[in-house]
């Protein structure tokens, strides 16, 4: 095991593993725990987790690459996740996404050079009633239009 993970993290991982009949079953919660500490799951983390759960690293990577919530690269301070699913798209998510790209000067999946913003598209955020919508880190913003985007971005410092 690499030494640079905190004692607290190791302790919480042990607790999570204890909850399941098979170590492998703890993979998702462990990924979240580790990501909370490191910001992302790099190959280093994959191997660390594989070691703890007695898995081959490829098994960890399967899960890491399946879920968009598990990040493979550290993101900017604010992770802007725009919904691109049906309701949002019907109500103009396309325009919202284009506007964000233009404003931030980055493509989907990229981070601004000052590491402030990262932009992704995500599937239904479960907030269709305020479509089109997005999330910044853990906060929801709905009924978007260009002005609202300007205001949101300006408020994030």
């Amino acid at each position, binding site marked *: 095991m690499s030494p640079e993970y905190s004692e607290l993290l190791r302790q919480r991982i042990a607790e999570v593993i204890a909850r399941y009949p098979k170590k492998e079953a703890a993979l998702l919660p462990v990924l979240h725990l580790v990501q909370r500490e490191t910001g992302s799951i790099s190959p280093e983390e994959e191997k660390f987790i594989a070691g703890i759960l007695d898995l*081959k690293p*490829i*098994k960890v990577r*399967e899960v890491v690459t*399946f879920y968009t919530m598990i990040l493979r690269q550290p993101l900017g301070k604010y992770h802007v996740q725009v919904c691109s699913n049906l309701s949002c798209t019907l109500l103009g998510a396309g325009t919202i996404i284009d506007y964000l790209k233009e404003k931030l000067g980055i493509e989907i999946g990229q981070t601004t050079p000052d590491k402030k913003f990262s932009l992704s598209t995500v599937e239904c955020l479960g907030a269709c009633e305020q479509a089109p919508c997005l999330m910044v880190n853990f906060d929801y913003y709905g009924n978007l239009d260009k002005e609202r985007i300007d205001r949101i971005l300006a408020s994030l410092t």
Partner: protein
Amino acid sequence: MVKIFIDDKELEVSNGLTILRAAEGAGIPIPHFCYHPAFAPEGSCRMCLVEISGLPKLELACSTVVREGMKILTASEKVIEARKAVLEFLLAEHPLDCPICDKAGECKLQDYFEEYGFFASRFKEAKEKREKKVQISKNLILDRERCILCTRCLRFLSEITKTQDVGVLNRGIHSEIAVYESNFIDNHYAGNLAELCPVGAITDTDFRFKTRAWFLVKKESICPMCSRGCNIFIDSHPGFARTPLAQRVYRIRARENQDINSFWICDFGRYHYSYIDQGRQERIVLKKEAKDTELSWEKALIILAEKVKSLVYLKKKSRIGVILNTWLTNEELYLADKVFKKGLGLENIYVVDPPSEKGDDFLLTEERTPNRRGLKEVGLPDLTPDLGKLALQTDLLLIFGTFLVGRFSVTELKSAFDKIGTKFLFAAHKSALDSLVDVVIPTPLIAEKGGSLTNVNGKVQSFSPALDNSLGLPEWKLLIDLAKELKINHKPFWQLSSPQAILEEMGRGIPFFK
């Protein structure tokens, strides 16, 4: 047992059987990609959909278990339509590069499409571009555009080798088979994947772009590289415009035998075939004062028989030595026993085999020769010669095979052989022994002759020639000719004219071979 109906055929099948297996058992094939009899059903490709009376939707034949009275339709309109649809989806992202694909001609996707294809494409969208040349092991290349994600490869590596070298990364249309970083598939059964992959997604660099599947003649044989005796196919090119000794064998494939090797063979057995076509002895040669004279077998036989007779006549038969090996078939070892030990009463009979190497806990055994068990059952002693002693006590030496070369240095062999009057070598390959002996007689390989071998667990397996051999007579034939020439034993035994007849004769004398 339950009673079911498949396409109007009434069948009694065992409980717990899947529809696909029950149908196959009754000779009704159901198209499938992800299903493979060695693994638990996966149900991912949807190719095996069938109609079951009373059920609103089509069901998967590979994973639906039969029930009493089930009425299954495998060729109804609905089923055919479903097959067309599944193929249409599978091909939506397929590069259609069959003309340069090694699997073409034996590809399930191609075959099924030929039968059920929806020929006009309805897709206007551009296809995804994916990597076409991802190395995933020493010999294997993955083409992600051709992969249909049936996960057979993944399941082989988790269920059979348990090495879990590959995974499915990403999701949806971006899913792909991958190894971890540069960790190649690292087990010596990986070669099976190119066969197991139902399409041309995994190809073998050993075979890639060398020939086309439809040119190959596919014959059954037994792998001689260790004592497991895996059942194999030898695929050879009959060759238009091929010079007589050019490459014949293009690949070795596993042949199913549930008692021995299931569906698999090891990479050692798979990739070691160049020996079949390389460095072969081509003529019977008499070597005299550094001059080679070509002989017919009849002539060589007379010379050999005269030598033997004169030593026997002079009561010097203890000065005749024989070196056998266990690449010889049961029949040949039996005849060697009959002629040399029982017939002539020789005592100096030795065995020199390829050296043992590390085996594994799956198929590959330590004994890197196919018939040591046969030697034991025939009742021949397993003695390794002491070269120094052999040199002093021998005037005539008959050597079968070239394995002495691996065991002793050429200098050791030369100094011993210089002291021995006459040496006959029966060998398939050229070797350092050639210049040390007086007569060289070419022999065929296991791939080129018939006979039987006894594997490590005592299983006797008969085989027929997979390749023709115009280079030499099989040892069993040579031994019978020698027996006749020396008038050894009774007549009926001289008349044995095939390995099968010899094996039957053996069965009468040795219960093990019955």
